[in-house]
């Protein structure tokens, strides 16, 4: 009797310890911290402007941030594999222009086909980046710096610098991202579905795990039978496909396509990833982080005009956020595990 009671007591203790540990991990995780910061941010804005926290406004902020979320997920996967994709915004602009021109030339083409074309074209451009990185071993920053200017230039070539305006597009083409389902527009649903799909891919599939393995330790990944180059190729292809999808959504939502669509947006995307705790050195990061990083920037962008701060402050604020985020990440990544051999860099 006494011993079984003791056993039961021990088990209880063990369980509480485990629960406490899990809770501690959850609370101290980077995602939770970021979530808290975003909530505080929203709260602060609400003090100045209570209507900001109405459900419809928050849904609007999320909808506005959806393109950034989609691109940040793709960028996260690329960064996980120690690469970087600076061509996403140009890819978005080119795909957007192509589908807009298809819509003008052939108004009868259904939206489903348009979406498939957008995703396919984006994926091809991403695969082109990936092939250069995989087969020719050119550093990713060089490849995507080059393709960024090339894609953007091609937009100009195919459009002759002309705009495709709202009245030239068909109603069906423009309606899809605004079509509401359960109170949320399809634009938001696309982002939500992408988050769910890639959460599953990253945590439950071999492909997802291989991205982490390649970024965490390329040599070990090679010995474990993972083809490093091919994983990077797939990362770029996914990033390109998401950029293509976003290209259609962007152009149809704003109902205009021109050369400089989303100019400079690639840096916002990288910024969202960095703020979301994705390590630029590869191997560390999560879909949740990318989502929250994008939301953080989205909330700031939408909050500034509401609290009467000039939108000119936005750039400096997001810049400071990046620096603070990367400084905090570096601190939290330090001292993980036991230091067996101090690295020479830190000893001086």
């Amino acid at each position, binding site marked *: 009797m006494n011993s079984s009671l003791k056993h039961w007591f021990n088990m209880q203790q063990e369980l509480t310890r485990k629960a406490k540990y899990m809770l501690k991990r959850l609370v101290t995780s980077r995602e939770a911290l970021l979530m808290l910061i975003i909530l505080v941010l929203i709260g602060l804005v609400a003090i100045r402007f209570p209507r900001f926290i109405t459900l419809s406004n928050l849904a609007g902020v999320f909808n506005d941030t959806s393109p950034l979320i989609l691109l940040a997920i793709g960028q996260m996967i690329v960064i996980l594999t120690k690469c970087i994709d600076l061509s996403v915004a140009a890819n978005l602009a080119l795909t957007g222009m192509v589908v807009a021109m298809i819509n003008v030339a052939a108004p009868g083409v259904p939206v489903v086909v348009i979406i498939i074309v957008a995703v396919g074209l984006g994926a091809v451009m991403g695969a082109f980046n990936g092939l250069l990185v995989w087969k020719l071993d050119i550093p990713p920053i060089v490849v995507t710096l080059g393709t960024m200017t090339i894609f953007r230039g091609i937009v100009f070539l195919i459009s002759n*610098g002309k705009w495709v305006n709202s009245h030239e597009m068909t109603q069906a083409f423009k309606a899809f991202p605004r079509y509401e389902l359960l109170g949320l527009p399809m634009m938001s649903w696309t982002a939500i579905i992408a988050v769910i799909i890639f959460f599953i891919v990253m945590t439950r599939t071999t492909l997802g795990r291989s991205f982490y393995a390649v970024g965490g330790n390329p040599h070990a990944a090679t010995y474990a039978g993972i083809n490093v180059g091919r994983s990077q190729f797939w990362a770029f292809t996914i990033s390109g496909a998401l950029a293509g999808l976003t290209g259609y959504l962007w152009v149809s939502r704003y109902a205009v396509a021109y050369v400089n669509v989303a100019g400079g947006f690639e840096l916002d995307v990288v910024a969202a990833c960095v703020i979301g705790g994705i390590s630029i050195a590869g191997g560390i990061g999560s879909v949740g982080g990318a989502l929250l990083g994008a939301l953080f920037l989205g909330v700031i962008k939408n909050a500034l005009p509401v609290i009467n701060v000039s939108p000119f402050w936005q750039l400096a604020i997001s810049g400071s956020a990046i620096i603070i985020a990367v400084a905090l990440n570096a601190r939290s990544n330090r001292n993980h595990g036991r230091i067996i051999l101090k690295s020479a860099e*830190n000893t001086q």
Partner: protein
Amino acid sequence: MKTSERIIPDRLQSPIQRYLKSWETLLLAVAVAIFMANSFASPYFLNAWNLSDATFNFTEKAMIAFAMALLIISGEIDLSVASMIALASTAMGAAVQAGFGTPVLILVGLGTGVICGAFNGILVTRMGLPSIVVTIGTMSLFRGISYIVLGDQAYRGYPSDFTFFGQGYIWWVISFEFVLFLIIAIIYGVILHKTNFGRAIFAIGNNPTGALFSGIRVQRVKFILFLLTGFMSGIAAICLTSRLGSTRPSIAFGWELEIITMVVLGGVNILGGSGSIPGVVIAAFVMGLVTFGLGLLNVPGIVMSIVIGTLLIGVIAMPRIWKMVRSN
């Protein structure tokens, strides 16, 4: 990254062979080819004044590219250079509003550049943060400050003696900027290729740990390189502001990518450890000639960027494709 194999040859190539096979020679051939193509394509190309004008396309960018080359060779990168130009230019504009003359303007421009460079340097070397992320952040921060100060306004009214830096000529068609570019090129060439400091930069880029154990103060060298990059951005800001005669927060937008393209085209390994100043000089001329030649043919700027982008990938891919073809 992938495992890099170093194959040590049984027999060294003769110096002439090495020169002929070097990156700089290939690039020089490209430059000459572009020059000839341009002179055939447009009757206005071979004109001393036109060519002199063409140099303005690259001199300011190239000044920063030299410092950037050193930084990239040491294994770091600075994406905030164009934003440093914007901030330095804004600071100079504010100084003009406050009624200061040209000497103070120059000090303000250089000082702003150095302070920004030091800020990057401290974040990277003291706090151990990755330079690519830090400078993506400061890139937004520095230009963001310009936007806060200026909004949609512009600073004008620079004193007339200030115009010399961007618009003055030393002799006939030889502009002040071009001479400055040449002097800076020589200084950086000497620093990188003839001094201990230059050797230290290569050593750090190839193996930071090894460099540290050889007694090189790795972090200090990197900090100095960030300072230098900021300083050069200050110089470029003075030239550009003087040339344009006004400051807007969008000044020099997107230059960081063109500067890095220039450096990489010049044969500097983006992963660090190798590169040369003559290569960067030739790359500056190549980019300037391409932009100018296409401009004479009424090709819009955005199409030129396709050419530059293709050049960047093509020039780097060529030797690799060649090696693959030969090994098969």
